[in-house]
């Protein structure tokens, strides 16, 4: 008996110590999620992140700070009145760097290994799009050390100028990597990735004041409205147009267009109306804004019901009209008003095709003193530039770019501030980044401190 017991106990003891580990082995593998996925499967997620950056909270804030929208309820009142705090900017930053850049880099690596040039190129273009926007909004941002967690635990902030240079290099690489255009795009729709790359190059050159380079790039840019790069949406809540989702589905009444400056320019019944004998904004205003309608949250809402922001409305990312207006502005700024006017008219023709109302070609005389588009007290060239900028301000309604243009041009259009006299000059570095990155700039620039390029 004793022996049996003794052996039983010894057995129990040894079994326990030896087999403790073997009993638990193999149960650490997650039965729910994989640890890898092929490049092509990652692409839709990357596109979605890019769409979220350019159509999401950053775009709304940019629009509110540029006279396009109005914060009317709850936290949006504070944001509208420039009472923004660092954490208000967390979400977009996450999409740029974690859901965007890191995914893009992984995807590029896998695509390169497969020799899939078009896919790698598209990932590079999306990367450049997002990082260019980050530099526009924040100034100095991480790029050269970003999205390499194993190498750089605290990515440094590259100077804004260096980021723009690097973004151009990324776009150049995209253009050379893709021998041909890929036909993949799941969350977005476009004519040609290469054209998009060129327009993005032009956009960034414009921001850095390199007008000749911008013209050269834009000449290969998006060639027609049919080739616009747009985000597509579905009639289901998880892929609604993001503006729609915010304004009606999730946060009804937070953002309206009560008193929005852009509305006053487009509204034929407003003293500020910009229309003239050649320009009829009566359709565009209804596409952009919802008014005289019982369903609005404010007196005027951005049109979430039957216009630009319905659940399945496509949202513009990089367009032919932008490309033409970049050309127009660059020509105007380099003294070639004839070419400037041509490209302005190209943009107007695109509107005429889209809205079916008059956007007749302007002629030089329209900008001369006494002309229909002349601004009293300004020269013809000044008036033309003002017209180009105003057209761009309205054409790019809903996009972050109007806020960038506003700051870049020292608000030459005179868009009124929502409170006080100053309009914010940047977005605040995010709370996430302040909390965790020891390389975040110090002191942290304030909302009204211009980014380096605008200083």
């Amino acid at each position, binding site marked *: 008996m*004793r022996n049996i*017991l*003794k052996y039983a*106990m010894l057995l*129990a*003891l040894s079994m*326990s*110590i030896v087999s*403790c*580990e073997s*009993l*638990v*082995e*193999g*149960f*650490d593998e*997650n*039965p*729910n999620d994989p640890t890898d996925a092929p490049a092509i*499967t*990652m*692409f*839709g997620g*990357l*596109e*979605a992140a890019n*769409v*979220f950056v350019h159509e999401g909270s950053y775009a709304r804030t940019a629009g509110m700070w540029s006279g396009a929208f109005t914060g009317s309820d*709850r*936290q949006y*009142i*504070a944001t509208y009145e420039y009472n923004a*705090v*660092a*954490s208000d900017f*967390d979400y977009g*930053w996450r999409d740029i*760097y974690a859901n965007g850049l890191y995914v893009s880099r992984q995807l590029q690596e896998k695509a390169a290994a497969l020799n899939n040039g078009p896919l790698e190129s598209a990932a590079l273009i999306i990367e450049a799009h997002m990082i260019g926007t980050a530099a526009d909004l924040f100034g100095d*941002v*991480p790029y050269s050390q970003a*999205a*390499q*967690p194993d190498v*750089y*635990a605290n*990515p440094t902030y590259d100077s804004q100028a260096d980021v723009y240079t690097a973004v151009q290099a990324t776009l150049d690489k995209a253009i050379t990597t893709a021998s041909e255009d890929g036909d993949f795009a*799941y*969350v977005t729709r476009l004519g040609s990735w290469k054209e998009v790359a060129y327009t993005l190059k032009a956009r960034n050159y414009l921001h850095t004041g390199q007008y000749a380079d911008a013209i050269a790039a834009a000449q290969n840019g998006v060639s027609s409205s049919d080739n616009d790069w747009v985000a597509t949406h579905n009639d289901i*809540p*998880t*892929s609604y147009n*993001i503006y729609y*989702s915010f304004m009606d*589905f999730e*946060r009804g*009444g937070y953002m309206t267009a009560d008193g929005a400056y852009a509305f006053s320019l487009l509204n034929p019944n407003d003293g500020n109306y910009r229309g003239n004998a050649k320009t009829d904004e009566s359709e565009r205003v209804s596409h952009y804004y919802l008014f005289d309608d019982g369903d609005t949250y404010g007196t005027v809402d951005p049109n979430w019901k039957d216009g630009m922001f319905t659940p399945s409305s496509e949202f513009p990312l990089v367009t032919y009209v932008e490309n033409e207006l970049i050309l127009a502005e660059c020509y105007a700024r380099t003294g070639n008003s004839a070419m400037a006017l041509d490209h302005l008219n190209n943009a107007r023709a695109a509107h005429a095709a889209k809205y079916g109302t008059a956007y007749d070609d302007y002629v030089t005389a329209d900008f001369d003193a006494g002309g229909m588009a002349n601004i009293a007290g300004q020269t013809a060239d000044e008036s033309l530039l003002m017209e180009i900028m105003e057209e761009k301000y309205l054409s790019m309604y809903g996009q972050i770019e109007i806020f960038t243009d506003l700051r870049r041009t020292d608000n030459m259009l005179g868009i009124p501030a929502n409170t*006080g006299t100053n309009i914010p000059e940047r977005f605040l570095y995010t709370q996430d980044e302040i*909390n*965790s990155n020891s*390389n975040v700039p110090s002191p942290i620039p304030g909302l009204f401190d211009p980014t380096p390029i605008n200083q």
Partner: protein
Amino acid sequence: MKKFSLIVAMLLFTVSATFAQRTVTGTITDESGEALISVNVVVKGSTTGTVTDLDGKYSISVPDGSNILVFSYTGFNTEEVELGASNVVDVVMTEGILLNDVVVTALGLKADPDKQGTSSSQVGGKKIVNSGETGVIQGLSGKASGVAITRNTGDPGAGAYIQIRGQSTITGDLQPLIVVDGMPVYNSSINTEESTGGVVEQSRLNDINPDDIESVQVLKGAAAAAQWGTRAANGVIIITTKRGRMDNKSFNVNFRSTVSVDQVNITHDLQDVYGQGFGGSWGPNSALTWGDRISSRAGGSDVVDETGEYFEATDGSIYYPITEKRSQDTYLQENLDQVFRNGFFTDNSLSISGGDENGSFFASFANLNQQGIMRGNSDYNRTNFRINADRRLGDKLKLSVNSAYIKTNSNRVQQGSNLNGLYLGMLRTSPDFSNTDHTGAHVSASGVRTERAHRAYRDYLGNRIVGGLPIGPVYNNPGWTIYEQENTSEVDRIVVGTELSYDPTNWLNITGRVGVDNYTDDRFTLYPVGSAAGLVGLEKNTIQETQSNADVFARASKSFSKNFSINGLVGFNFNERRYDRLGGSINSFILPYAPANLDNATPASSTTSDFSSTIRTAAAYFTASADLYDQLFLTVTGRQEAASTFGAAAQSSFFYPSASAAWQFTKLGALSNNSVLNFGKLRMGYGVVGIQPPVYASSTLYTSSSLVSGWGPTLNAGDYGQGSYTPSNRLGNINLRPERKTEFEIGTDLRFFQDRTSLSFTYYQNRTTDAIFAVDVPISTGFYDKLDNAATIENKGYELDINTLVYKQGDFSFDLGLNWFRNVNTVTDLNGVESIFLNGFTGSSSRAVEGHPMGALWAGSFQRDDNGNYILNDAGFPVVAPSEGVVGDPNPDWRGGLSATARWRGFGFNILFETSQGNDMWFGTEGVLRYFGTSAATAHDLVTFTPEQADATILSNGATISGYYAPNDDGNYTVRGAYEDFGGGDVFLDQSWYLANGGGFGPVGEQFVKDASWTRIREMALSYRLDSKGFREATKLSSIDFSLTGRNLVIWTQAEGVDPDTNLTGASNGRGLDYFTNPGTRSFLFTIKVAY
């Protein structure tokens, strides 16, 4: 082992050879027939003594001339037995008056509390039943020092949160391990929705029938709990269920029936001076209540337009568009009555037990049927069956089986930050709007009729209709929330444990235990067509958890002399926990009013979810203890444990040691036989316990790509053709190892005046190192965070328990019990991270912040200078600080309970006060009600300004009064508001202040974080027992008890609108949050108990 046995045998031989004169043997049991281990047996007037073994057996050599044996055991009356002719003396020991707390160890084995070097608290089953709470957890409130219970809400079946000696992990589970009859069981409270919204989930521990509980032992410190390794860091609660007696004569039937009436205990303070609207004007459908002064209206009925559209309520009431608001009626009470009623429950429980010398059984059946304080779909129904049986198989083998089946059905009401929640729509409703008719038909101007339309204060005609179907107002009418929406949960649970105990010799026992706890929770949530904010759909989830546990251990016990005995135990434990959740949801219906079925939707609006995990833990453990000179007791334990959750690159198993010592210093000559201090013990304990890493955290995963922003919009790449998998935002960590909590405690147990007063005091300090949390990494690295062993947390505290029999004379007795505890928690190291979000909202949250207590309340604040004065803008208003920070501490400075019990003949009276002092709470509801203008704090008087004053008075938004408001007919301005001086002279606070920085949606959460200390009469009961001899003979019953109980009868607190003993985020790690949390309750109960 052989050598050890030899030594033991030799020692035994030596000892017995020296003293043998006459050998007396016997068995010591308690009144239920259970063997008592380690009972002291002493020959009176000599130094000869021994202790009983694991079977309660003893053998003692009695010298010539001695003929009295003294049997003593803590918690029992000391027995002196005169020896007769027989050499066999069996003793049944009776429990003492005050101290009936035989303790159980971490393995569920009975032990003598006076020999323990660690502190633990015991709560008898009766006390839990008598609390009037429907859940076991809530029933523990105020009854044990060091144990803080917080209810989730007062909803029927709502779970609760248990905190023992402070929070010692950041993101790990904070709930203690629950062991029932030696078998770990689930106390899950699984929230599949957003923690700040949704419904209040149950705690699975509350499945247990309180009437089945014999006792609850709370092992608070690491030293006592170390035997459970990585499951024990939050303490262990050992529950022992009732068993039948093995004494061949008893057959008992007990029946208890309780009825209860429940009421809301605290409501929000709302104003009914001003009506719906904005800027001082009435505005229908406005979100806000910054409208006109109701008493200034014309009076009479509203002027309506009867020519066009209208809403026809279910009861036929017609609502037309109002063209002129004249009515001065207000509806605060009516709107409250629409929702709340007297809740009600019946609780019936029946048990039968009995046995003979070879076996026993206990069988019970219970049903609790509760209707909540909210009308409509708020209920909880729990049915319990239990059979516990024991059987001796010969002298050496005993088989025990415990089995329980539990079925709960409940329907819950949505709460919190949730447009479809109860309080959100209800408390924002303007006082001049009646919520009574929440549904009916809308008829358009052209006569189109839409049934089941939804009417609420933001859509008073119920006319938000798209495509012929109502899409609902922005917020639910509360009537819609409670009557139309459904949130059911149906739980089937089986817990079975078997134990085989084998005694090969009188000094050795081998026990094997195997058990399974399995439950399935079928949940169902329905948002019918017309629910607020267009939210339509159905969600079903089936959650299943299965825990299997096996223990084998051998115990040896040997007494070498009165002065030296040892106990040893070695064992092996295997535990597996499997979790499965399978769910589906649809967010549209093909047929709007068909039976709730997931097939009733297009594929595009259907989603599924699927998650499963398995966690395995295996360990070997030992305990060794020595009793020296009957006054010094030493115990060491150890556990070597491996678990499947450790990272692949981490060590595969970890060791958890503990040691404790108890010294009964009153056994020293000089201190013995003291008439004041009759017992004194010093104790000390040291132990290490752990917390396992979260499951599957060691690798970076790829997940189906879906982006969500803080505002709600979502973009799911899966909606586009081929879908997408992208890396998740959390970086995997192959080095993850368990968190380790090391605790040291020292304390004393004293008893005075022949045990009439007992005092127990403990000081402890513990330190958790390697606490795991998602360390935020710079987002620019490509990830949000990475789980890492990176934080350190410390707790220090004191616990004091005093129980005293104040007075006893004849049939009258009066007892007082006090427990008091203080815990100071500090997050000492967060690896340089400023703060970690635990729960709450962007803007106001509960966080871990270095240098602050866990759960610190974090929010924006007004900027202050070094002297604490506000920094003001030019107009004299305070400006918002650029960054958020700690603004409060939800942890109490101390908590305590004071109970008093008086008995006289059959009458009993007891009262339990409980208090929590110094705990802050974020009153998010109050903040937001200020924004909306429904809070009583916004019912400012009207102030009249001349045009000049109006031009000169600057409001918080920078506008002047004349620029912001329309003038009266006489040119003056009349504005609702009040002056306030922030340090730069009076400024005028009007709606623009509350809509921005002065309200709950502004960036300054600090204003709504306040002291939420409370003191309450937790329980008060009056009872009467009929058990006189005449009664027993006449009825054949042994007793009938009647009792009237009140719980939460009175609460003293400055909390705003909410019972501070609730928490929006339930049993989560985020504490002290209120945001449209469903209310708490008070109850009145009547109970009758019949015993046969």
